[in-house]
């Protein structure tokens, strides 16, 4: 099992397709944080993000035999996560503004005490800006928001985002630029 941890995604997927569920569990370990954070960026609710991202793993596993290797596993998997998040957003049409800061209040407080350079005022401004940015993101068209979150929050390349969104790189560039412009506009109002 230990040497399997070293296997590439595609090798693990191949073993999963032969019925080795344990290999999929390695992929869960590998992608759970990213999956959760994407879902959290979309939903702003930790419980919902957990459910959605776990659901994405279940769907990926159920359809693992349909993965043909034309794209990388993570772009295929990200697409499942994003689709679930967008479906959820469509069904609920509403976002609860719960931040990760509030969920982990205690570690934040400990950090404040330990960090001598911590400036409460700057932190408050940054928090408010983030909140404003989150609201702007929520009101954005889904495609712009998806492109922005995958690039800015998840660090996916434009080429990979294009694969996840099944569109061209040029279109992703336009989405990204529009999203940044909208955010900039909202932050201009804020400062």
């Amino acid at each position, binding site marked *: 099992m230990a040497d399997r941890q070293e296997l590439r995604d595609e090798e693990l997927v191949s073993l999963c397709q032969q019925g080795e*569920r344990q290999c*999929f*569990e390695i992929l*869960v*370990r590998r992608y*759970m*944080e990213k999956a*959760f*954070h994407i879902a*959290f960026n979309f939903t702003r609710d930790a419980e919902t993000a*957990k459910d959605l991202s*776990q659901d994405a*793993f*279940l769907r990926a*596993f*159920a359809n693992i035999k349909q993965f043909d290797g034309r794209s990388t596993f993570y772009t295929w998997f990200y697409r499942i996560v994003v689709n679930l998040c967008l479906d959820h957003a469509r069904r609920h049409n509403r976002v609860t503004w719960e931040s*990760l*800061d509030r*969920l*982990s209040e205690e*570690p*934040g407080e400990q950090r404040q005490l330990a960090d001598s350079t911590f400036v409460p*005022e*700057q932190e*408050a*401004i*940054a928090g*408010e*800006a*983030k909140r404003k*940015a*989150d609201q702007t993101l929520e009101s954005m068209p889904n495609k712009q928001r998806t492109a922005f979150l995958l*690039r*800015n*929050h998840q660090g996916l*390349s*434009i080429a990979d985002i294009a694969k996840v969104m099944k569109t061209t790189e040029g279109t992703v*560039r*336009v989405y*990204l*630029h529009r999203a*940044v*412009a909208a*955010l*900039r506009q909202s*932050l*201009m109002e804020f*400062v």
Partner: protein
Amino acid sequence: MKQRAPLQSACKSFEEDLVLYYYGETDEVEQRRVQQHLSQCVSCQGFLDDLRRWLPQIAKSEPMAPAFWDDYYRETVTKLARQEERKHWWRALLAPRPMWMVPAFGTVGVAILVVGLLFGKGNLSSFIQRPAERIPQEILADENQLQFFESMDLLESLGKLEKQDDPSTDSTSSQSIRVRMQQDIV
């Protein structure tokens, strides 16, 4: 409380390139072009600085506790196992059996059929042959009660006789009826 930090505007023709430059999504030619422009344009420098300042802030999230991830992983693995069980329960039923099981199942089936016929038939015949002429105890009890009610009718008749003992009525005729009734009872 709020700190004024006005965002810079960029040259319109460079805005999109600056966003892509910030994300490292420009090729070498575009990169050189943007860098050259930046060296001459203060507004675009300010715009890029704003992106560098704000975009990482927006993406920032506090790390979750390790216990959260342990629970997350355990839950997901459990859900995966359950999903797999649900998916395969019917396959177990339809799975091909070893050849030796065919005559074994056949023998067991015939044995069940024979035992069923033997015992089932015995029960059926005993049910059919139940004597219809045998009178149940309940009906016999009802018959005794009928005799009881007949004697009750006689007592009722005696009550009527007592009413007739009234002085206003004819004493001789009533006396003769009473004698007749007492004879009936006897």
